[in-house]
């Protein structure tokens, strides 16, 4: 009996230790399962929008590389331009920041409202677009005048200044206003007019841009039609180019290009959002190559990033200085990078561009 009793106790202890072991294993298993469930937010998204195929660029098409990268020193950057005096003017926040070409701040011009675009006339006057009107400053940044707003609907998003005229791209009214240098409206460009063969500007998001070429013609991005349109200052549509599509030659998404600039020889730089990239086209719109690839702008192209509400705080902008150097600004990070032509690979020659009339 005693022997049996001892065996029973031993058996009991064995069974108990087995039970405790099983319980511990079960607890570990359960906690890891719970952790797995809790971590399920990190599981691959079965509904992800696949954009990788659009973000990949054939390296042979990439003609430029980054020469220098510096902060734009601007909160909420919008547009920027390189002036003939060798300075960069960055619009954003409630100021125009003036930088030298290495990124050092030279001056800052405080403005009464958020600055949406900036342009510098050949005589040095600085034009800064607020959301609904233009402020004028002299070359030192002293206020000169405030122009009348074209109305509540105005949403300026681009500026160009010539010798006699200033052009303000108004995304809200889907029009480019042509002002004289005193701020009087001379005419409107881009208004739908079947008789003149003008299809009308389609501006789904507030990224309307305007540039004045050395040929005296205006370039305007009709992003809803995925085109660049070329107008006379009087508003006659000369020609247009560009097509929608995911291929590298086309403009992707709903509404691109969101920005562009002209090289001294008349070629176009185009900036896209969604798949942030900068490309170069001939003056007639033939695709020539890629200046900046989406991988240079990881924050700009990160899927699932929260978006601020006014729709114009993403994407890229570009400008070209008098020497033809290209600058690209990331509107998410505010960084500016200057670009230089890549050295040709051994055994190849540098890309040859067709000479265009300036």
């Amino acid at each position: 009996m005693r022997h049996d009793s001892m065996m029973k106790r031993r058996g009991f202890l064995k069974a108990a230790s087995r039970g405790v072991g099983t319980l511990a294993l079960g607890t570990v298993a359960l906690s890891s399962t719970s952790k797995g469930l809790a971590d399920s937010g990190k599981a691959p998204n079965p509904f992800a929008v696949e954009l990788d195929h659009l973000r990949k660029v054939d390296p042979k098409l990439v003609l430029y590389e980054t020469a220098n990268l510096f902060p734009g020193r601007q909160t909420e950057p919008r547009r920027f331009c390189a002036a003939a005096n060798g300075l960069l003017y960055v619009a954003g926040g409630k100021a125009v920041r003036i930088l030298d070409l290495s990124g050092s701040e030279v001056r800052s011009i405080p403005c009464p409202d958020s600055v949406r675009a900036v342009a510098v006339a050949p005589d040095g006057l600085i034009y800064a677009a607020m959301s609904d009107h233009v402020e004028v400053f002299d070359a030192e940044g002293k206020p000169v005048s405030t122009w009348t707003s074209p109305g509540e609907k105005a949403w300026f998003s681009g500026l160009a200044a010539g010798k006699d005229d200033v052009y303000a791209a108004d995304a809200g009214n889907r029009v480019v206003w042509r002002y004289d240098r005193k701020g009087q409206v001379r005419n409107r460009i881009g208004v739908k007019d079947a008789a003149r063969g003008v299809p009308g500007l389609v501006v789904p998001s507030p990224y309307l841009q305007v540039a004045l070429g050395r040929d005296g013609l205006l370039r305007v991005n009709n992003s809803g039609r995925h085109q660049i349109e070329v107008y006379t200052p009087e508003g006659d549509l000369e020609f247009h180019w560009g097509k929608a599509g995911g291929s590298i030659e086309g403009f992707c998404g709903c509404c691109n290009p969101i920005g562009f600039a002209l090289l001294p020889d008349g070629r176009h730089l185009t900036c896209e959002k969604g798949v942030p990239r900068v490309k170069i086209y001939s003056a007639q719109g033939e695709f020539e190559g890629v200046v900046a690839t989406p991988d240079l702008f990881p924050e700009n192209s990160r899927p699932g990033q929260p978006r601020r509400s006014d729709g114009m705080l993403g994407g890229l902008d570009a400008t070209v200085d008098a020497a033809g150097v290209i600058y690209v600004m990331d509107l998410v990070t505010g960084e500016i990078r200057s670009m230089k032509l890549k050295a040709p690979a051994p055994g190849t020659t540098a890309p040859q561009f067709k000479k265009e009339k300036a």
Partner: protein
Amino acid sequence: MSTGASSGGPVNRRHFLRQGARTAALAGGGVLLGLLVGRTSARGTVWQIDPQKCVRCGNCATSCVLKQSAVKCVHAFSMCGYCQLCTGYFEPAPNDLNTGAENCQCPTAAIRRTYVEDPYYEYTIDERLCIGCAKCVEGCNQFGNGSLFLQIRHDRCLNCNECAIAKVCAGDAFRRVPVNQPYLLKAISH
């Protein structure tokens, strides 16, 4: 005594049972009232998604305790560009701009595309079909103005104490909002 006791006994028991029933009814009513009050005014909040924090992780479609998620895509028309090539409706690089399934983002065909005038189209959500997967929301945010976004629809939501989607939300976008302002709508700032 015995009569009194015998006559008083049943009366007391009846009385006791009556009182007990009344007490139980009152207690039950109190609990019910407490629950109702808890779901509305006392706690006074319901779950909602902050569209500025939403990262379109897809968990709204798969983690709700309901068979079809209470999260739906909603559309802020004031922010919409009425694009011909809407990247909420179409794949980013569609073969063609038609309703072919291979060209469309929505896995349940819950978005209706209606011609307005050249080149504008209006996009509306059929909430009976929407599963809250946010595919259209991501497409709209990547390329467009972000006018499509997710919201919990309170005609369906059970307002669980511990929301199953909130537990796994990758953007930490779920929060409780006052019951008298149950939606967090997007609007364009000029």
